[in-house]
């Protein structure tokens, strides 16, 4: 069994899971209330506490979490415990803007992040640049999920199902249920997938049984075999650690799919409960995944580069062959991995579709079109985008963590728009646009000029600091803004 992954039974379980997801898509289709953008992309703004929490959770924890993060723990060692911190920082960063953004979204009927930027700043140029940044970042993220699909299917089937078949097959299922039911389908499948992820994490804990004695022996082995992976981090490593927490925390909170879930909450109370529960999930989720990477240091022979992303599938197939209980536990983890990847990919794809349909096409070629027509355009666009990304994902040339870091360096430049703009009325459109452009320029120019990671800080974080400085120091910042939206806010 270990040689061929989970065998026929495992394949049947996955097929049953995929059939269930398609059924949920059909149910969501029947539950739609209107042929509007708000109903398709925000589930009618009616997500209650449980579904909201589940969709936030299943969306935030992705293929990167289950494949890339254990792989990074394998490469870096115990210092990767920083992943628990940066996933928690994302939830903390919500507190900077989510309470007020949710209130405004209900009052104004917002659908996309660009809608709020239009309302707050009234600058088409700023909204366009910010949307381009968001699209670049989430296309990158979606690509990482597609690659993860291929990796996990290939790894878990012991190579019986090729990488390309995993990418194409799982993507097709996502496209079908998403086209059928929009965010309602995505959120409902996320609820199922979120439960599967939690069950799978239970399976991980059952499989690795990290008693202090067992864990201590592994730690001793790591300290003797690769001392740099167990040593107290140096000052430079600590700076990089803090920089990673800030980078991921600030950028992860402004993922457009996260912002749309803030819009989709049924009430402030539902959103509060969802966010409070999310604050605890890194401890429940990231600690086991971190331990998987550490344990695999001793369990698996030397893996380097892209191959380290295969740590989880390799361990699962090994555990599956050990005993019936471990087989069942590993099967739960396998489903959780597939669920985590699909739940993130579907959310990202839906958000991408909404931005392109409403913010790009709705302001140009489909200006004045009805909601129904824009929604149809968004669905067609989803299929086209995915076709291109699948083609790219079939030739992977970078590790999953590499993809994550790349998108975060760009995405963080949008964070000041929401976190400063929502509360600080003196941030004008011109200041925000100048800050955004300077931030992007700094983060791109630093590595190109040979000054990557100055003082150990991420280029994106340095760019964001420059971005904020420009916003605050812009000569016109103190001048009373005359645009209608800001005048209304000042009233």
């Amino acid at each position: 069994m270990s040689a061929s992954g989970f065998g026929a039974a495992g394949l049947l379980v996955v097929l049953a899971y995929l059939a269930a997801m398609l059924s949920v898509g059909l149910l969501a289709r029947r539950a739609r209330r209107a042929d509007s953008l708000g109903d398709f992309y925000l589930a009618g703004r009616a997500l209650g506490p449980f579904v909201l929490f589940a969709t936030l959770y299943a969306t935030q924890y992705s293929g990167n979490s289950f494949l890339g993060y254990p792989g990074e723990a394998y490469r870096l060692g115990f210092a990767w415990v920083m992943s628990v911190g940066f996933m928690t920082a994302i939830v903390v960063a919500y507190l900077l803007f989510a309470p007020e953004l949710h209130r405004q979204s209900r009052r104004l009927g917002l659908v996309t992040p660009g809608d709020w930027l239009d309302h707050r700043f009234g600058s088409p140029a700023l909204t366009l640049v910010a949307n381009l940044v968001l699209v670049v970042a989430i296309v990158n993220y979606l690509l990482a999920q597609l690659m993860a699909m291929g990796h996990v299917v290939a790894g878990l089937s012991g190579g019986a199902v090729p990488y390309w078949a995993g990418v194409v097959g799982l993507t097709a299922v996502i496209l079908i249920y998403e086209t059928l039911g929009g965010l309602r389908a995505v959120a409902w499948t996320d609820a199922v997938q979120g439960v599967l992820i939690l069950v799978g994490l239970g399976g991980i804990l059952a499989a690795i049984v990290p008693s202090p004695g067992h864990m201590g022996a592994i730690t001793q082995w790591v300290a003797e075999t690769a001392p740099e992976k167990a040593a107290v981090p140096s000052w430079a490593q600590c700076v990089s650690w803090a920089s990673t927490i800030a980078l991921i925390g600030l950028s992860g909170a402004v993922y457009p799919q996260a912002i749309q879930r803030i819009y989709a909450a049924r009430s402030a109370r539902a959103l509060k409960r969802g966010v409070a529960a999310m604050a605890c999930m890194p401890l429940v989720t990231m600690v086991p995944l971190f331990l998987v990477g550490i344990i695999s240091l001793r369990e698996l022979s030397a893996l380097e580069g892209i191959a380290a992303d295969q740590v989880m599938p390799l361990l699962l197939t090994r555990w599956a062959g050990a005993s019936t209980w471990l087989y069942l536990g590993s099967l739960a983890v396998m489903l959780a991995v597939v669920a985590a990847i699909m739940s993130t990919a579907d959310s990202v794809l839906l958000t991408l579709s909404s931005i392109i349909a409403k913010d790009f096409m709705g302001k140009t070629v489909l200006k004045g079109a009805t909601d129904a027509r824009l929604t149809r355009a968004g669905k067609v666009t989803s299929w086209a985008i995915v076709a291109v990304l699948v083609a790219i994902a079939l030739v992977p040339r970078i590790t999953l963590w590499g993809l994550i870091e790349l998108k975060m360096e760009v995405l963080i430049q949008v964070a000041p728009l929401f976190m400063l703009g929502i509360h600080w009325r003196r941030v004008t459109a011109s200041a925000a646009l100048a800050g955004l452009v300077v931030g992007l320029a700094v983060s791109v120019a630093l590595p190109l000029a040979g000054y990557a990671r100055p003082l150990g800080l991420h280029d994106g974080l340095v760019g964001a600091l420059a971005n904020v400085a420009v916003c605050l120091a812009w000569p016109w910042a103190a001048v009373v803004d005359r645009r209608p939206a800001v005048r209304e806010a000042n009233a």
Partner: protein
Amino acid sequence: MLPRADRPPASVRLPRWIWAVYLALFAASVPWYVPDGPLRLWLGLPHWVVLSIAAIAGVALFTVFVVRRYWPDGDDEAPIPR
């Protein structure tokens, strides 16, 4: 100026002191203050790993407190524009 009934209410903003607490907790999660030395095991892990996880547990609990105590329920019944 907008009529009084149409004016947006004051923005929902959390108290500033909570950010100082978050800064302290996140700073404690990075082991910059732990001196280099021989391996010390707590619960089978290097002790600085346990310190980091404990600090993040503090962040999580503090967040639950902040959300419950300082985030107002607000306008749950506000109309949803179509």
